[in-house]
């Protein structure tokens, strides 16, 4: 996925710039490798030197072996599929519901005044605090996980879009009206693109929140998924596998954030750095 992503980016910029980007990327990659190697070396040293508490950790090599074993089982990959599927579906529903709601709240003052007070009360509740209610409320555990993973990014997105719409300069609307724009033109050609940067900020923050909630929900209510896999490793006392689970969750979250960022760059060509 990430390889394709990089290719896509490369193909979008002209020759000179593309070689510059590649140069910058390779420097970045190099820095990344150095920092990773240093981290693993420190870890190895800390465990070998029997530094209190840290020495309870397995050696990096043990984790590596455990990862190798896990990667050979279909269970490991099914955990990936289960978690990604939940994130994808919940996150898309959160966008599909949240973006229009945010747009209308931003554009219509009466509508905003009607909805916003409820938002202000409900929003500060951490998504994880919804877990007990969600489990009781929804008929299956699977549905409660979807609902929880939906709630997390939902508020972030609505609020971002709402503020994004409200911050669109009035003069754009006036100019468009003068040029003969109808209300539908104002919505599709002014409000929506004007709010796009905020929509994408909401998505970027929202995807992070979605992973947070998903993992917690999977640990408590899930039958499978990366969160569940990590939790089961804990109940079985398999420390290397716990760490494999953590690393997998980190990588999955990173891939999703990169995808969102990539979508953002391709939706808003006017915001590219030239």
């Amino acid at each position, binding site marked *: 996925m990430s390889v394709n992503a990089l290719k896509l980016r490369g193909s979008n910029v002209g020759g000179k710039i593309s070689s510059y980007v590649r140069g910058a990327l390779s420097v970045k990659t190099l820095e990344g490798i150095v920092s990773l190697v240093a981290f693993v070396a420190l870890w190895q040293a800390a465990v070998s030197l029997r530094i209190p508490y840290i020495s309870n950790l397995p050696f990096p090599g043990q984790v590596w072996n455990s990862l190798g074993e896990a990667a050979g089982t279909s269970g490991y990959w099914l955990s990936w599929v289960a978690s990604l599927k939940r994130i994808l579906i919940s996150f898309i529903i959160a966008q599909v519901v949240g973006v229009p709601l945010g747009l209308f709240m931003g554009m219509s003052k009466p509508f905003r005044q009607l909805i916003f007070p409820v938002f202000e009360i409900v929003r500060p509740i951490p998504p994880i605090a919804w877990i007990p209610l969600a489990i009781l409320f929804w008929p299956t555990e699977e549905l409660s996980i979807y609902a929880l993973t939906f709630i997390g990014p939902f508020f972030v997105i609505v609020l971002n879009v709402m503020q994004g719409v409200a911050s669109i300069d009035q003069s754009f609307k006036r100019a468009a009206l003068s040029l*003969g724009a109808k209300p539908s033109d104002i919505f599709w050609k002014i409000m929506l693109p004007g709010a796009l940067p905020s929509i994408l900020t909401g998505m970027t923050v929202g995807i992070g929140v979605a992973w947070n909630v998903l993992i917690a929900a999977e640990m408590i209510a899930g039958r499978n998924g990366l969160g569940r896999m990590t939790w089961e490793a804990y109940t079985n006392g398999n420390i290397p596998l716990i760490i494999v689970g953590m690393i997998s969750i980190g990588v999955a979250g990173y891939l999703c954030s990169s995808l969102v960022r990539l979508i953002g760059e391709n939706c808003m060509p006017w915001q590219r750095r030239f």
Partner: protein
Amino acid sequence: MAEIAPLLRASDGGAGQDPLLCVAGVSKSFREGDEHQACLDNCSFDIARGELSIIIGPSGCGKTTLINLIAGYELPDSGSITLDGAPVSAPSFDRLVVFQETTLFPWMTVYANVVFGCKVKGVPQQEMQEKAKHILSKVGLYEFRDKYPSQLSGGMQRRTELARALINDPKLMILDEPFRGLDAMTKELMQEFYLTLFEETGLTTLFVTHELEEAIFMADNLVLLTHKPARVKEILKIDLPRPRHFSMMASKKYFDLHGYAMGLLVEEAKRAFEDGNAIAFDAVSSLE
């Protein structure tokens, strides 16, 4: 100074028999806290067809407010504005404004910005493309049609904005301090550019500025506004020949007009300064 006897608004407002735009007794005030601050006070003037009229007055006197009313963005408290006899009540592409601050849509390319009006009005594709090509070539931006506004210089942005308006064939082109904020060189080029365009097309133009040299050099009519609340102080006819040329700024007629108008403006700038308007003070010190 008999030859520049001010053409004070009499029966015809200084604009002949069949003016394009009539501003009659327009007043506007804004609420500031509990009290109403008068901004425009009984302003009346006409704009003749095919002429370039310039509104000039101290900073903060209400010029942009007046333009917002003519554009139909806001409504006057009293008085009326009519274009071709029809009351102005909403924005329309028969009067288009280019403001000092760019209102180009940042998310659209130069081309998409320019054809926006055609698109929303449903002009056929073929016709739209031809018009766009013609107008973009005219403002010298055809090569830049796929750039985004943020990739253009200030002068290019202004020209794109002009093109976006001109493609709609407005009856009245309004420019509110359009070249303010550009560097001196670009500004001069833009003035010359618009002047040539006006002299070629005869597009009725309402131009707002606070710079007298620019005003006299370009205008057929000069509407002088007083300090806040703005009233029409005087309307001057600038009968320098066209096409205008920079050398005319050395003529006796220009000199006389300039001296006369300057006297009126300094009076107003001083009043503005007494009211504590620092920008107006800069204006006074640069005039004297």
